[in-house]
């Protein structure tokens, strides 16, 4: 160990009416102890004080701060203070402290008034609204352009996104849909058996899955899987100035990043929904056969009668809209990331929460409208 003096507890001793003796190490590890000593001390009444500091063995900035503060305080009380025997290196340190001391008081927590805070919140919300509109506008223009000239769509990015967000999501979507069908049938089985209405398990599973559960579970999965990834990818590109590079190369980030992702999800989510329908119904039929004595053949023939094709179309009809919501929210949050690592995490979370929220709101809206129309 280097320069670690033994027995270095700091002391402040009152020798007589005018002499104060300081000892030990005035360094950060001992400062709490030193502070305690200093707060308890009763300075000799009146008059000047001589500080004998020749026995201070070690001092760092913290120690110098404490010494300086104590001395300033005493001088403030109108005493004459002289310091004797300070080593030149400590003298230098004390010099640095006292020359910067005026600035130290500048660091006091700035208290914002409620009004200021409210104002800041208000402006931020307004700005947010404007940027959201800007984003949606730019998106709409770019998408319309791309639809007019489909060659503008980046095929490479589209295919990559299809693979990453569609194909790779197959196993997890399938498993979840199967389990959901399984669970719905299982929960229904108990009730249906009481009424001897075993065969209606087909209606239960078929209609609920095709119309609501499958599209929703796919949307929620994709929001968690891809929406968050979009936000993080675009955010990271923003932090590393890649987006700026894209712009200066004369390319449009919208065209390059947003359009392929929106298109890919619009294709992938409906397809995944159909896939989830199939596996969900399979899950239901397993329970129907094992718990309710409804054989697979019976299940299928009942399915044809009971589940109108419109339920299927309503389900997959909603899917592209879910896809648009998820892709746009993910990309939007990505573009909103500003500079810091913290922001990436926050915005990623927000993208998932917001897209699931909007998907469910949209779904509820659809339910209401469809019930008005009696379908």
């Amino acid at each position: 160990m280097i320069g670690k003096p033994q027995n270095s507890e700091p002391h402040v001793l009152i020798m007589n009416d005018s002499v104060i003796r300081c000892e030990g190490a005035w360094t950060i590890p001992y400062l709490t102890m030193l502070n305690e000593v200093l707060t308890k001390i009763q300075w000799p009444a009146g008059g000047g004080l001589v500080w004998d500091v020749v026995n201070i063995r070690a001092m760092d900035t913290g120690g110098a701060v404490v010494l300086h503060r104590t001395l300033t305080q005493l001088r403030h009380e109108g005493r004459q203070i002289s310091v004797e025997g300070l080593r030149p290196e400590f003298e230098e340190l004390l010099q640095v402290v006292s020359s910067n001391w005026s600035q130290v008081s500048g660091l006091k927590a700035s208290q914002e008034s409620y009004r200021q805070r409210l104002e800041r919140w208000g402006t931020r919300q307004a700005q947010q609204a404007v940027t959201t509109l800007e984003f949606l506008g730019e998106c709409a223009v770019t998408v319309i352009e791309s639809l007019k000239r489909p060659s503008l769509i980046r095929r490479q990015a589209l295919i990559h996104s299809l693979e990453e967000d569609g194909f790779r999501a197959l196993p997890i979507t399938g498993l979840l849909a199967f389990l959901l069908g399984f669970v719905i049938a299982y929960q229904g089985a108990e009730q249906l058996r009481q009424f001897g209405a075993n065969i209606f398990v087909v209606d239960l599973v078929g209609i609920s899955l095709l119309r609501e559960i499958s599209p929703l579970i796919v949307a929620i999965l994709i929001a968690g899987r891809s929406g968050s990834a979009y936000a993080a990818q675009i955010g990271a590109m923003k932090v590393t100035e890649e987006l700026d590079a894209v712009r200066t190369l004369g390319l449009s980030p919208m065209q390059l990043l947003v359009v392929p992702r929106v298109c890919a999800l619009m294709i992938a989510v409906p397809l995944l929904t159909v896939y989830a329908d199939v596996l969900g119904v399979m899950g239901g039929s397993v329970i129907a056969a094992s718990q309710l004595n409804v054989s697979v053949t019976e299940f299928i023939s009942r399915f044809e009668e009971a589940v109108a094709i419109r339920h299927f179309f309503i389900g997959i009809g909603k899917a592209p809209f879910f896809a648009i919501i998820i892709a746009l929210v993910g990309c939007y949050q990505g573009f909103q990331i500003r500079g810091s690592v913290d922001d990436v995490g926050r915005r990623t979370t927000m993208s998932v929460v917001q897209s699931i929220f909007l998907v469910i709101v949209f779904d509820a809206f659809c339910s209401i409208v469809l019930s008005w129309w009696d379908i």
Partner: protein
Amino acid sequence: MTMPPVMAASPIIEVSHVYTRFGTAVVHDDVSLTIEQGEVFAIAGGNGSGKSTLMREIIGLHVPASGTIHLMGIDSRRLGQMGVQDIHRRFGVMFQQGALFSSLTLEDNVAVPLKEHTNLDPTLIREIVALKIASVGLPMESATKFPSELSGGMRRRAALARAIVMDPELLFLDEPTAGLDPIIAAGFDELVLQLKAVLKLTVVMVTHDLDSLWRIADRVAVLGEGKILGIGTMQELAQSQNPLVHEYFYGPRGRAARKQYQE
């Protein structure tokens, strides 16, 4: 801590026979050096010569394939273990990108070591932090800002303030002046010298800023081809016969920096 050097003879850092490789690329091939207390030691060399890696090895962030490194008498490999945190108070590191915590304000960033390693009361912490912020030349208004709101030079200074807040004996600087404008870079050199004088620091810096090397380095090790190509004062290295070292100091930029120094 500014204390009289009790055992001034023992080197503060000892690197012996270090061998490092990433995959098949050999970065260090038998590198040995010692750094004495109180000196400003610079590790120089071209891009990819393993300067930063050597520094990371010294502070225990990377383990060399073989060889030993002692930092203040403790084996670097043990730095990450429990029970040796004590040593972390005794050295400060300033990373190349600042590595400030982005969720904390500048003030809180600088206060982290004090809050974590000491039980000082908040007022005193505040005073020490303010003092350090002032002494690296940052305005007090910046104290409440977050790192993303600071300019590159300010972030570098804030990182330096955090590195020295515990008054370490040893300060590591990774490319302290890279990417700074010449005025701020020169100011940074002055700042390091001033801190060294006041806090009696030993400074280890990785740099290829030739102006910095001439101005503040007491001794320089030039890394290249996995070896130490030359070690000594800048004057000594300028006389080196090694072609790579020669090129380093006598390239167009090297000549200019040297000339300026001699003037």
